[in-house]
């Protein structure tokens, strides 16, 4: 049975009471306790720094050449916190409520409430570290709005919020490295976790430069290894983002929760051709000011696709601002899952606006006018011409989103100040991940999972600017408490030896797999398989799913996996720097994880958040939840092969929120 270990008592008191009741480890004892943190993104860096400050001996790993380069660096738009600086009615309760509703009622109340509670501390902490958030003229912090909410609670640093937050956490980590409290292993990949007497007591890691396998023992291990969106090959994730660490943990007994809950982000730059290696996000913040549309008439859409007409030639009356039409209350700021499906619906119906028919417009013309008018009146211009107004408006937009517009121009070779951007949904984030209890411990004793690698807070759909919040909440304010409660029982254990039979066996298994890959001598490069897996996943387990498609996908993935092990070609050797080998190991795991995702999608006979089963929709085409039968977390237990995995249900109990059909109309 799964025990989520949610503390008793009223929702708003649970976390405070929990902290008051847990066991503490005295400072002298902390010095004899070792903790391994795998990953140095927001979740990992913040955890490693905080644990080291508290006195634990920390070892941290990342596969990049520096902890500062973790995928968190790429986050653009912002981070939420219930500060209510704008005095627009925000509160801890409202952030909690928005997050549970936004997640389509598939997350745990207690976890989400704790997240909302600590959100305000995050901003204080980051400012103290010197994170240069955007400010207003009065010198106070500025906020913006994100999708799915009606308040302005998002803190940001232009379009580089993730970078600034990660550099803050990295500097805290660097300080502990300089003190010798963190042993930082860069260009190191975790290959497996090691279990001793039913507890996780370390890992096998590979030095990616020399190829050497290393044993690292510890009293507890924390995985902060990010999400697995790259199972789709094309996603907005960094190229190296992977599921391997989480998957290895899964195979050693950690349950994988809600693996099919994937976030498809509505505003990304469309695919340009076969050569495409990754997709680029255009931050959701653009939906504050951009309006999304397609032509209302099919012949116009066809003409645009053929290149005989441009967006500017479509009269206002012939445009279909379909989000504003379908969801008047939230308009362009509906949550991501809703916006993505609506774009797909229009494109599938034949209204797409690029060569491939898979793009819609994101248009700033109204924003240019609106801002231009305000600016003209600020500057006291009397009767400015439309042209003058638009020019002024463009300056304002440039100040807000300049770097995003430049990025778009660079990639699409098209000027978004003159013609509307073309965008299409792309895989972005995985709500699913390792199952954890309230303490962030997986179903394996002593093995924790934080940040995007766990499943905990976002239900079936994550709200914008909430992943950064969760990563830092986990690392700075939650894990440092909860892990102490576990480690308090280890103060007399003494150092864990890596000279045991368990470490020996784990290392041997890792070596055998590497040898197999290197000696396989197949004919196709790793990417060949990864691309094909991605295509299966996108077509059958992407924005909409159905029974027949999922069953076919499962069969296809199995066949592809078999072919991979027979025919993959990994050049070079295992005893020097070999990025192809690293990639091969990761794709091998994706080929298993993909199957489990499809099984999970097949088992969940309802639509909720990012999981849209075509068989379950309202007459208007909205997601149709089935709370009676599916208000649970799907936790999958590994049993030798992905196809044998067993489904365990953790029932979700809602005591503080009434379950409703989500409506943004």
């Amino acid at each position: 049975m799964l025990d989520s270990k949610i503390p008793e008592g009223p929702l708003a008191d649970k976390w405070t009471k929990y902290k008051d009741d847990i066991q503490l480890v005295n400072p002298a004892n902390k010095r004899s306790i070792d903790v391994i943190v795998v990953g140095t993104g927001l979740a990992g860096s913040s955890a490693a720094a905080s644990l080291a400050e508290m006195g634990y001996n920390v070892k941290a790993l990342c596969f990049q050449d520096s902890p500062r380069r973790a995928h968190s660096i790429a986050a653009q738009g912002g981070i939420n916190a219930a500060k209510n600086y704008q005095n627009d009615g925000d509160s801890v309760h409202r952030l909690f409520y928005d997050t549970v509703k936004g997640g389509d009622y598939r997350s745990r109340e207690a976890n989400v409430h704790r997240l909302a509670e600590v959100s305000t501390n995050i901003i204080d902490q980051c400012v103290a570290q010197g994170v240069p958030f955007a400010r207003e003229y009065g010198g106070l912090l500025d906020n913006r709005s994100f999708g799915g909410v009606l308040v302005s609670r998002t803190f940001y640093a232009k379009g580089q919020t993730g970078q600034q937050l990660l550099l803050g956490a990295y500097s805290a980590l660097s300080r502990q490295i300089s003190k010798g409290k963190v042993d930082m292993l860069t260009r190191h990949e975790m290959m497996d976790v090691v279990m001793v007497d039913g507890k996780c007591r370390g890992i096998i890691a590979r030095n990616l430069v020399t190829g050497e396998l290393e044993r690292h023992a510890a009293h507890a291990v924390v995985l902060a290894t990010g999400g697995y969106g790259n199972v789709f090959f094309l996603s907005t994730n960094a190229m190296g983002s992977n599921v391997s660490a989480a998957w290895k943990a899964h195979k050693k007994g950690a349950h994988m929760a809600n693996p099919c809950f994937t976030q498809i982000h509505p505003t990304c730059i469309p695919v340009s051709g076969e050569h495409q290696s990754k997709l680029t996000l255009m931050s959701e913040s653009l939906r504050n000011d951009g309006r999304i549309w397609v032509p209302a008439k099919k012949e116009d859409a066809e003409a645009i696709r053929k290149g005989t007409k441009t967006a500017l030639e479509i009269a206002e009356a012939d445009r279909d601002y379909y989000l504003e039409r379908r969801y008047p209350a939230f308009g362009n700021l509906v949550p991501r899952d809703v916006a993505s499906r609506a774009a797909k619906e229009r494109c599938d119906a034949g209204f797409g606006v690029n060569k491939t028919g898979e793009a819609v417009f994101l248009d700033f013309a109204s924003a240019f006018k609106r801002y231009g008018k305000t600016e003209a009146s600020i500057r006291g211009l009397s009767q400015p011409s439309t042209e003058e107004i638009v020019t002024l408006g463009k300056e304002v937009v440039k100040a807000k989103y300049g770097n995003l517009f430049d990025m778009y121009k660079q990639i699409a070779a098209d000027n978004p100040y003159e013609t509307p951007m073309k965008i299409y949904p792309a895989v972005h984030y995985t709500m699913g991940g390792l199952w954890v209890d309230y303490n962030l411990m997986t179903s394996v004793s002593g093995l924790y999972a934080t940040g995007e690698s766990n499943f905990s807070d976002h239900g079936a759909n994550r709200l914008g600017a909430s992943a950064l919040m969760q990563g830092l909440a986990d690392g700075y304010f939650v894990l440092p408490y909860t892990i102490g409660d576990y480690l308090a029982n280890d103060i007399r254990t003494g150092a864990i030896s890596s000279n045991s039979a368990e470490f020996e066996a784990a290392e041997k298994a890792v070596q055998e797999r590497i040898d197999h890959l290197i000696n396989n001598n197949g004919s196709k490069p790793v990417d060949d398989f990864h691309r094909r897996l991605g295509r299966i996943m996108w077509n059958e387990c992407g924005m909409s799913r159905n029974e027949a498609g999922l069953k076919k996908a499962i069969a296809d993935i199995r066949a592809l996996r078999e072919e991979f092990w027979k025919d993959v070609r990994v050049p070079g050797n295992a005893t020097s720097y070999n990025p192809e080998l690293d990639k091969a190991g990761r794709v091998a795991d994706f080929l298993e994880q993909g199957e489990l995702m499809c099984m999970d999608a097949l088992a969940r006979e309802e639509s909720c958040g990012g999981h849209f089963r075509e068989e379950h929709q309202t007459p208007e085409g909205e997601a149709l939840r089935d709370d009676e039968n599916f208000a649970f977390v799907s936790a999958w237990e590994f049993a030798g092969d992905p196809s044998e995995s067993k489904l365990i249900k953790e029932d979700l109990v809602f005591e503080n929120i009434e379950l409703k059909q989500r409506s943004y109309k």
Partner: protein
Amino acid sequence: MNLTLKVWRQDGPEATGHMDTHALEGVSPDMSFLEMMDMLNDQIIRAGGEPVAFDHDCREGICGMCSMFINGEAHGPGRGVTTCQLHMRSFNDGDTIAIEPWRAQAFPVIKDLTVDRSAFDRVIQAGGYISVNTSGNTIDANAIPVPKEQADDAFSAATCIGCGACVASCKNASAMLFVSAKVSQFALLPQGQPERESRVQRMVEQMDKEGFGNCTNTGACAVECPKGIDLSNIARMNRDFMSAAVKSKK
């Protein structure tokens, strides 16, 4: 497009390297430079060879991992872009393109185009932080207002991605632009004041230890910097360093 690529190959830090020539056909102008490299590697692997090793991750200009010296310029011909943001439409059919790693004593080659930039991390470890522990009760984020202009300047300095193009572009392999960006970020914020002097001293000392060269004010670093880090940061760091040196002598 059809291209001729001259690529630096080097097996390891101690090995001697050489330029290899490859013909690559059917390159699309819409490809990014790294997608072109993917295509090259695919061709090499299918022909039974060893692919070119290069660093990359985000492929959108923010992680600072990609690092190619293309036709004699760090991050290639574009301004304000990283290697991964460079597109093949910046080149012409029939071009010959030379691709080399960053070259600097402090950045030894690991393999081919991959270099070791951990010296940058050690410079940050020497003092590139504000000494504040994690706690749930630091002062409220709005307790100290920061003038917008100052906050914006601190942000601009903080956008450095640690790629090392500045070092690779400098004839002395100086790291002044990188170090001064971090020093400036904190020097411009009220939170950075208490350690302002010791920070600059420790970071400069570490920078020298790592074997980066001296700054002779040629400004090549700022020209090639993909994030537009300004030379004024170096001036600010020099001032702070001088004033710290004077005070510590007293």
